[in-house]
């Protein structure tokens, strides 16, 4: 049980900088998920916590102790690797018990603890097998057992589910959550799967290109993404992002204008990006709404996704009702104003003042076809 402090941490491989100064605090016992696209530096950060990667600059402290110079084994972390990294030549029992063996725990005691751990991860019947004779999910459990047995202060997971098939992934997700509830060690979990991130995290860290984009509770991030990057990365299908400009205290969006709250008067003339999630778009009643050019419809069984083009940019809408669209025909959507997001087009950052979204609440109901 320990808090992890990451202070101004940088990482360079030779001349290329991979992490550009990361500051994070992971409170004791929290389940933190680091989410980001491939190559953004998630693993690098995790491995620096573990001690597998040198820290180029900055400081990492675990439970208050700066660990920069410590060997992995001295940091009290346990790690579950993406490919599990099980020792293929050892039985499940030996895999789980290896850390104890190295630290010289007597055989009998070791045996007892291995059995205990195996019972927790449900591997009691497999203790004598080699990893090769296990299914994906079972291997995953061995990896967890091996990490658990040392009763680490910190659990690190590097995309532990990405090698499993979809069904298994869902059930292992549940198991990891249960395990965390049981052990309550500070856990850092790296993934690029936003569903995993959303469902597992107490606290979510979204990274991009070696920088932290946003930190917060998953739903918070979902509802108030701090940047277009986060907005597009979280949620599937991705949020529709449409380029526009603030003109006359309002944003023009296709055939509609969205008046801004007065506090945003300073934005006049600014290039902005308007975002709305496909699942928040509705088909408009005939004659109303924003018009887009239909492209095609994807039938998912449970609902469908209408793909269209609005302002020359792709626009998707997840809708429940059946529609018939012929490619090239116009189709009208309602964009509920309370679900609109506004971003600075240049920096990509969310525009919000005092926690108030930019578009005027009052104006929401008045969203009307523009005159153009």
């Amino acid at each position: 049980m320990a808090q992890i402090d990451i202070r101004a941490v940088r990482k360079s491989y030779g001349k290329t900088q991979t992490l550009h100064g990361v500051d994070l605090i992971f409170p004791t016992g929290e389940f933190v998920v680091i989410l980001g696209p491939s190559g953004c530096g998630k693993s690098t950060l995790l491995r620096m916590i573990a001690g597998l990667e040198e820290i180029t600059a900055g400081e990492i402290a675990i439970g208050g102790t700066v660990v920069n110079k410590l060997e992995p084994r001295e940091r009290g972390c346990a790690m579950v690797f993406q490919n599990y990294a099980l020792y293929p030549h050892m039985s499940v029992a030996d895999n789980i018990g290896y850390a104890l063996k190295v630290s010289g725990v007597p055989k009998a005691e070791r045996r007892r603890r291995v059995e205990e751990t195996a019972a927790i991860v449900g591997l009691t019947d497999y203790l004598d097998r080699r990893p090769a004779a296990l299914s994906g999910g079972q291997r995953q459990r061995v990896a967890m057992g091996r990490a658990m047995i040392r009763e680490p202060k910190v659990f690190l997971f590097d995309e532990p589910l990405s090698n499993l098939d979809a069904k298994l992934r869902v059930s292992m997700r549940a198991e990891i959550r249960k395990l965390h509830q049981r052990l309550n060690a500070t856990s850092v979990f790296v993934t690029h799967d936003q569903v995993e991130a959303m469902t597992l995290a107490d606290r979510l860290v979204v990274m991009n290109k070696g920088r932290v984009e946003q930190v917060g509770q998953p739903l918070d991030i979902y509802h108030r993404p701090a940047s277009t990057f986060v907005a597009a990365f979280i949620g599937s299908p991705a949020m529709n992002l449409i380029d526009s400009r603030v003109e006359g205290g309002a944003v023009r969006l296709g055939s509609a204008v969205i008046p801004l709250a007065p506090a945003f008067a300073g934005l006049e003339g600014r290039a902005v990006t308007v975002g709305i999630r496909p699942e928040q778009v509705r088909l408009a009643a005939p004659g109303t709404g924003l018009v887009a050019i239909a492209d095609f419809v994807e039938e998912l069984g449970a609902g469908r996704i209408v793909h269209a083009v609005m302002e020359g940019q792709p626009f998707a809408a997840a809708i429940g009702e059946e529609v018939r669209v012929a490619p090239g025909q116009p189709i009208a959507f309602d964009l509920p104003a309370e679900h609109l997001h506004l971003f600075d087009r240049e920096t990509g950052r969310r525009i919000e003042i005092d926690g108030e979204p930019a578009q005027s609440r009052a104006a929401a109901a008045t969203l009307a076809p523009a005159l153009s």
Partner: protein
Amino acid sequence: MIQRTPFANALTYAIMVIGFLLLIGPFLVVIAGASQTMQQVNAVPFRFVPGDQFLANATAAWTRGDLGHAMINSLIMTLMITFGKVALSACTAFAIVFFRSPLKHLFFWTVFITLMLPLEVRVVPTYAVAADMFTPFRLLIQFFTGIELKIEWNLLNSYAGLTLPLIATATGTFLYRQFFMTLPDELAEAARMDGSGPVRFFFDMLLPLSRTNILALTTIMFVYGWNQYLWPLLMVTDPSYQTVMMKLRMLLPPEDGGTPDWNVTLAGSLLIMLPPVLVVAVLQRWFVRGLVSSEK
């Protein structure tokens, strides 16, 4: 990287340097000795510092062993072995791996068994066959038809004789086979869908893809061919076909004269070692990759 402690690093370097002395040291001694004068090379203690006599010694060795001629012979033999092996093995491996043929397993085992029996243990009869390539046929024909044929084809004292028997083993075939097995099935299937037949597939796909293996095999076979010892010793009686390995003996300090001139001997053996060492050094990268993929 984990465990970059100064101690571990120092130990690592110590091991690598000891390895260097062990494996490369002998070369250094030979180079030192080969470039010293006769007095220096015979001095005790031996001085590891190279002298300036290498050219003189090498020239002496070159003449004593008549190396010029032998080098050319060795080169011809080596290239023929290398080329023959590289080409024939690829064909055989192709036949074994890519065809569904009842003979496939027969081919496989016929070739596999040769791995275990080098020339040394069957050298006398091999010599007899080389002396008259047609013996087996003649005997067979005679056995079945009673006709005694008179044709003969003698391989003694010829490049064919130096090379053909050495091409008749399995190493190369296995290298290719292992590599071919690792190629995804879909590659051949895609080619088939594209309308390519087996022969086209062989030339358009397999050969270009086997580049690394070909280079590795080239290296191995160059070393193997150049270093052939017993076979040329037996099969060549005509000095115009002598290879450098056969000259080693001549390079030894003459038995009838004074202080042994090891400096000349060493310079000579250095010259003889050089070509395969160069080949390995130059082709090292592919060689290593090819070697490793031949494993198992």
